[in-house]
C-alpha cells in the first residue's frame, strides 16, 4: 500500500496561508520555540510548533478574517486577548494558548454559537467530521445557559437548487469562510453576508437560489464550510468516507489532483488535494462533482461483436471478442496490405495506454497508421513550438502566472475551459497585472467582477496571424524589442530575415486594420503595454490552433515572445491551454504517424534502432496516415480496419458527412469505450473501457506535469484499458506481457530521454513530475528554456498571413465559430451522463441582435445553419457577446451536429481542422434538419440493436 492510500482524516489545517519571506522570526508558544517566515500569523506559527489553537473562521486556504474570537491568545506585554489568526508573529514574542482565562472566554464564545445551532448532531450529515463539533469538544462545552429555546434560525429553509450540494442555513455560524472562498479561491464573488448582527446570513448573489445566482458550482465554499451548512449531496446520502486515495482529474488539461474519499469501492466525494501542485486545493464543478458517469447505467461492461453495423450486437467473452478482432484485422491485411489498418489513441486515456496503442500499431500492425484526436486540437502547437523553441510543449508551470505583469490571452477561455487555472489567473489580475485579450468573442475574462481587460482586440475570425504580425510590427518599428536577449539567445540570420519581413509595411497595424477589424490604435497600445512589462506571458487555446494557419500562429506567438525577451524564467512564456486531460501526454507518447515517443521522427535512424531493439521488430521509416488521410483512404477503398481507444472520431472530427462515409466503408471497426458513443454505432467490435477511477496510470497536464491516476475500484468490464490493448496485441500475434502500468512507464523511461528519470516510485515520492526529468533535472523541470532553448538558439520563423479559403459570400454571409463551456466537456459523453446537464441541456447558436433582426430571428427560435458542407438546426440565443457577422456555437451534443456544418479545411502544416471558421447562412426554421432526422433514426436503430445484445437468447 502506497502513501497515496490513507485512512480517512480531515487534512490538517494550519490556520492561515503560507507566507514566503527571506527573513524569519523566532517566537515561543507555550514554552516551545519556533521560527517562521516573517509575516506569518501566530495561529500558523503555533500549528507549526504542533500546537492547535481552537478556531472556526480561519483556514490555511483563506486570508484571516478575525470574526469568531475563538482563537484568542495571551501575548506577553500585549493588551487584552488578541486573535491569533490576525496577529503577526514577531521576534521574541511569548504566546500562551491555554489557561483558565482563555478557556472561559472560549467556552462563552462557543456557548453563544451553540445556542443558535440545532442539536441534531447524531443525524447530521457531517457528524464525525464537523469543526463546530470539534471545537465544542475542544473547549469543553457542557451546558448552554441561554437555553435552546431563544431566538434562533432553526426553521430556516434549505436551498437544494444546486444538484450537487445543499445549503442548510439553520446550521450557519456566519464565519464567512464560504464568502472568502468564493472571492479568493474561485474569484466569482457570488456570495455575500447579508444584514448585520443576529440578522446576518449568507446569500447567493441578489438573495437568489444557488442555481439562479452567479455561482459556477466549483464547490470551494462547500469545502471551506466548517459546519454542515454547505454539504455535498453525495455525502448526505452516503455518509462519512473511511479511506482516501490520491488521484488526478480526468476532465481537462489543468490536471487537478484529488483525494477520492471512499467507502469501500464507492466514491463518497472528490476533494481537491491541497498538496496538488497544479490546483493547490481548488477544482471546478466537473472534477469535484461530475464523477457519476463512471457508474452510469449506460456503461457497457461486456464485449460485443457483430458482422455488419446493421446486425444486432452479440455479447461474447473477452476471448471470443479478441479472436474475432484479430481474425478480421489479419484478414484485411492479407487482402488489402499491411497499411490498410490503423489505430487511434485517446487523449483521455493514460500515458501508458496511449503508448501501448501506438506500440501495437507500429510493432503489431507493422505500419505507422496511428493518430490521435489531439490532431483535431493541438498538433499546431507541437509543430510551431518545436520548430521555433525546440520542444513541443508549454514553457511554464501554472504558478508562473502569479509572477506575470502583463498577460495576453489568445483564443482561449480559461474561466470556462480551464477553470482552476482561470481562477489563478484572475487572482493575479486582481493583484494588478494587465490583461490583453485577443478573441472574436467577448469572453468572461474581458469583464468580470474585479477584472477588466486593458485591451480586448476583437478580431475577425481567421485573422490571428495578421494580428500577431501587426503586434510584432509595433514592437520592432518602435524599438521595443529586447535587443540583448535576441542577440544572446536567438539565431541572428533568421532574426534579420524575420525583422525585415515584419517591418514590411503590409504588416503594420494600419494596413492590417481592414483585415483584422481591430483599430490600429488599440493594436499599438496593446503591443506597447506587452513589450514594456517586466514579465509578459502568453496563454492560448483552440482559438489559435483550430485555423488554417494554426501552426503559423503558434510560430507567430513564439516569435513575439522571443522578440520581447519573454521566455526562460518564471512569469513569462508561451503556454498552450490543452483541451482534454491528457492531450500533452498523448502527444508525448508518440501518437502521431510521423513521430515515435518523445517527438522523434520515424526517419531518425538512431531512435528507430533503439525502439527496434526493445520491441524486437523492424519499424517503417516513413510516416503513416493521419486521421483525415485514413478517412480519405477509407472512402477510396484502401483503408479497411481501425482500432479506436477512448475516442469519438465520428463526433469530434469535422465534416460529419465525409466521416460517416468513411466509417461505413470499414470492414472492421473496433471501439473501446465506456459508452456506445457515436463511433461505436459504426463498430463491429465493442470492447468495454475503464474509467479513470478503475485503473492505474499517469496523465500529463498542460504544464508537462505527469500525475498519477490510481485505481479506487475494480474495472466494471474486468480489465483496465492497457490490459485490453495487451490482449489484442497477443491475439494479433505480437506478444506483450506487462503485469502493471509501472512496467510500461519503465519502458517509456528507457526509450525517451525527456522521461529518463520518471518512475512510479518517484511519482509516489514527489506527488507529480514535470518533464523533462533526467540526470540534469532529477526532480523535473518547471520552467523550460532557462539558459538556452532546447534547440540551442531560438529560431524566428516567417509567418506570412494567408487568408483562409473559407470566405463569406452572398450565399454564406456569416462566420460560424465554435467553442466549449464550463459544465460540459468536449463531446460530453461523460458530463452528459451527470447532473451537469442542469446547466447545459442543449447546444445553442449565439447570434448578434442585428443579424437576428435582419432574418426575423428571435430569442429561442429554431435556426437553420447551412454551410457548403451541410446543415443543422439549433436554438437561437440573441446576444451581443458575438460581433455582427459572427455566429457561435458549442459542440457538446451529438444531435446538434455542429460538425455537420464545419468543413474539411485544415491547418496547412498539421491538418488540424479549421473548426473556428466556417462560412454559413442562418435562417428561421420550424423543424430539424434532414441530417438531424436521419441521425435520430440511425441512433434509434443502433439502440435497438444494442438492446438485442442484452435480450435473453431465443429458444428455438
Amino acid at each position, binding site marked *: 500500500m502506497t502513501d497515496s492510500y490513507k485512512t480517512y482524516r480531515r487534512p490538517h489545517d494550519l490556520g492561515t496561508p503560507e507566507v514566503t519571506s527571506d527573513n524569519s522570526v523566532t517566537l515561543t508558544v507555550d514554552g516551545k520555540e519556533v521560527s517562521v517566515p516573517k509575516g506569518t500569523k501566530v495561529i500558523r506559527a503555533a500549528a507549526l510548533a504542533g500546537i492547535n489553537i481552537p478556531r472556526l473562521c480561519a483556514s490555511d486556504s483563506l486570508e484571516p478574517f478575525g470574526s469568531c474570537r475563538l482563537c484568542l491568545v495571551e501575548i506577553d506585554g500585549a493588551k487584552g486577548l488578541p486573535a491569533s489568526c490576525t496577529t503577526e508573529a514577531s521576534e521574541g514574542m511569548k504566546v500562551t494558548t491555554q489557561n483558565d482565562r482563555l478557556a472561559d472566554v472560549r467556552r462563552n464564545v462557543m456557548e453563544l454559537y451553540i445556542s443558535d445551532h440545532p442539536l441534531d448532531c447524531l443525524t447530521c450529515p457531517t457528524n464525525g467530521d464537523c469543526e463546530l463539533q470539534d471545537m465544542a469538544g475542544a473547549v469543553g462545552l457542557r451546558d448552554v445557559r441561554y437555553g435552546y429555546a431563544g431566538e434562533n434560525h432553526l426553521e430556516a429553509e434549505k436551498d437544494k437548487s444546486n444538484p450537487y450540494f445543499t445549503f442548510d442555513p439553520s446550521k450557519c455560524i456566519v464565519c464567512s469562510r464560504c464568502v472568502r472562498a468564493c472571492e479568493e479561491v474561485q474569484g466569482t464573488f457570488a456570495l455575500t453576508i447579508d444584514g448585520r448582527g443576529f440578522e446576518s446570513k449568507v446569500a447567493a448573489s441578489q438573495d437568489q437560489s444557488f442555481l439562479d445566482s452567479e455561482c459556477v458550482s466549483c464547490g470551494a465554499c462547500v469545502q471551506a464550510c466548517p459546519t454542515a451548512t454547505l454539504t455535498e449531496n453525495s455525502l448526505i446520502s452516503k455518509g462519512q468516507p473511511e479511506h482516501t486515495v490520491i488521484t488526478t482529474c480526468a476532465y481537462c488539461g489543468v490536471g487537478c489532483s484529488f483525494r477520492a474519499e471512499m467507502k469501500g469501492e464507492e466514491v463518497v466525494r472528490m476533494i481537491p488535494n491541497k498538496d496538488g501542485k497544479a490546483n493547490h486545493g481548488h477544482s471546478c464543478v466537473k472534477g469535484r462533482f461530475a464523477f457519476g458517469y463512471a457508474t452510469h447505467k449506460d456503461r457497457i461492461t461486456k464485449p460485443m461483436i457483430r458482422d455488419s453495423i446493421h446486425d444486432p450486437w452479440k455479447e461474447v467473452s473477452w476471448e471470443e471478442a479478441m479472436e474475432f478482432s484479430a481474425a478480421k484485422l489479419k484478414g484485411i491485411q492479407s487482402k488489402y496490405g499491411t497499411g490498410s489498418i490503423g489505430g487511434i489513441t485517446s487523449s483521455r486515456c493514460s500515458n501508458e495506454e496511449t503508448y501501448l496503442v501506438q506500440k501495437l500499431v507500429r510493432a503489431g500492425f507493422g505500419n505507422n497508421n496511428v493518430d490521435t484526436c489531439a490532431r483535431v486540437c493541438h498538433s499546431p502547437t507541437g509543430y510551431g513550438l518545436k520548430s521555433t523553441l525546440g520542444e513541443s510543449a508549454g514553457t511554464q508551470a501554472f504558478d508562473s502566472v502569479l509572477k506575470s505583469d502583463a498577460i495576453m490571452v489568445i483564443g482561449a477561455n480559461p474561466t470556462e475551459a480551464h477553470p482552476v487555472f482561470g481562477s489563478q489567473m484572475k487572482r493575479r489580475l486582481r493583484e494588478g497585472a494587465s490583461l490583453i485579450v485577443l478573441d472574436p468573442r467577448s469572453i468572461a475574462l474581458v469583464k468580470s467582477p474585479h477584472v477588466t481587460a486593458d485591451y480586448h482586440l476583437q478580431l475577425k475570425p481567421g485573422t490571428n496571424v495578421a494580428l500577431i504580425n501587426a503586434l510584432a510590427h509595433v514592437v520592432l518599428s518602435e524599438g521595443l524589442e529586447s535587443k540583448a536577449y535576441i542577440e544572446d539567445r536567438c539565431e541572428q540570420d533568421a532574426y534579420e530575415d524575420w525583422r525585415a519581413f515584419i517591418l514590411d509595411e503590409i504588416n503594420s497595424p494600419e494596413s492590417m486594420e481592414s483585415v483584422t477589424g481591430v483599430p490600429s490604435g488599440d493594436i499599438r497600445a496593446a503591443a506597447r503595454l506587452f513589450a514594456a512589462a517586466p514579465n509578459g506571458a502568453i496563454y492560448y487555446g483552440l482559438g489559435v490552433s483550430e485555423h488554417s494557419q494554426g501552426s503559423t500562429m503558434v510560430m507567430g506567438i513564439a516569435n513575439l515572445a522571443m522578440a520581447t525577451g519573454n521566455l526562460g524564467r518564471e512569469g513569462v512564456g508561451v503556454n498552450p491551454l490543452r483541451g482534454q486531460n491528457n492531450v500533452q501526454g498523448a502527444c508525448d507518447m508518440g501518437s502521431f504517424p510521423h513521430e515515435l515517443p518523445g517527438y522523434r*521522427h520515424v526517419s531518425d535512424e538512431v531512435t528507430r534502432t533503439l525502439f527496434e531493439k526493445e520491441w524486437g521488430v523492424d519499424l517503417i521509416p516513413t510516416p503513416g496516415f*493521419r486521421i483525415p488521410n485514413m478517412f*480519405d483512404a477509407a472512402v477510396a477503398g484502401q483503408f479497411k480496419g481501425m482500432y479506436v481507444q477512448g475516442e469519438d472520431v465520428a463526433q469530434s472530427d469535422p465534416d460529419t458527412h465525409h466521416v460517416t462515409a468513411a466509417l461505413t466503408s470499414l470492414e472492421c471497426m473496433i471501439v473501446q469505450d465506456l459508452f456506445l458513443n457515436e463511433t461505436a454505432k459504426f463498430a463491429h467490435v465493442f470492447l468495454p473501457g475503464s474509467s479513470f477511477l478503475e485503473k492505474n496510470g499517469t496523465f500529463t497536464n498542460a504544464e508537462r506535469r505527469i500525475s498519477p491516476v490510481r485505481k479506487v475500484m475494480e474495472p466494471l468490464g474486468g480489465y483496465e484499458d492497457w490490459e485490453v490493448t495487451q490482449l489484442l496485441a497477443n491475439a494479433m500475434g505480437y506478444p506483450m506481457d506487462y503485469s502493471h502500468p509501472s512496467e510500461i512507464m519503465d519502458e517509456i523511461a528507457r526509450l525517451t530521454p525527456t522521461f529518463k528519470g520518471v518512475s512510479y516510485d518517484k511519482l509516489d515520492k514527489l506527488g507529480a513530475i514535470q518533464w523533462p526529468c533526467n540526470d540534469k533535472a532529477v526532480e523535473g523541470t518547471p520552467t523550460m528554456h532557462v539558459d538556452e532553448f532546447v534547440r540551442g538558439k531560438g529560431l524566428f520563423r516567417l509567418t506570412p498571413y494567408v487568408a483562409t*479559403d473559407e470566405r463569406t459570400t452572398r450565399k454564406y454571409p456569416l462566420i460560424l465559430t465554435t467553442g466549449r463551456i464550463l459544465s460540459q466537456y468536449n463531446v460530453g459523453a461523460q458530463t452528459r451522463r451527470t447532473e451537469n446537464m442542469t446547466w447545459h441541456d442543449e447546444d445553442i447558436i449565439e447570434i448578434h441582435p442585428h443579424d437576428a433582426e435582419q432574418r426575423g430571428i428571435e430569442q429561442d427560435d429554431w435556426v437553420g445553419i447551412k454551410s457548403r458542407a451541410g446543415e443543422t438546426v439549433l436554438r437561437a440565443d440573441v446576444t451581443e457577446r458575438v460581433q455582427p457577422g459572427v455566429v457561435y456555437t458549442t459542440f457538446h451534443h451529438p444531435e446538434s451536429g455542429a460538425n455537420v456544418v464545419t468543413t474539411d479545411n485544415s491547418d*496547412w502544416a498539421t*491538418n488540424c481542422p479549421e473548426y473556428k471558421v466556417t462560412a454559413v447562412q442562418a435562417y428561421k426554421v420550424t423543424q430539424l434538419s434532414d441530417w438531424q432526422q436521419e441521425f435520430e433514426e440511425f441512433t434509434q436503430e443502433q439502440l435497438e440493436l444494442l438492446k438485442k445484445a442484452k435480450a435473453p437468447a431465443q429458444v428455438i
Partner: protein
Amino acid sequence: MVAMANQIAKNLDYGSDKSKAIAGVVDHIRRFWSPLMLDEIAEFISTGEAELSTIAEQALAQLIEERQAAE
C-alpha cells in the same frame, strides 16, 4: 490532397527566393506525408487534372522522382 499541397506552398512561400520555398515544401511533405499519399497524388498528376501552383508542382515532382528511384 492537391489543395493541401497548394496550401503548404502558399504558407512557405515568402519573398523572392523560390528555391527556398520549394525546398521547404519538399522537406515538409517528406516529414509528414505517408508515401501512399505521394503515390496517389502522383497518379492524379499524371492525369493532367491536378491544378497545382508552380512551387507545389516542382516540389512534388522532386519527391515523386525520389520515391520512384527508391523503389
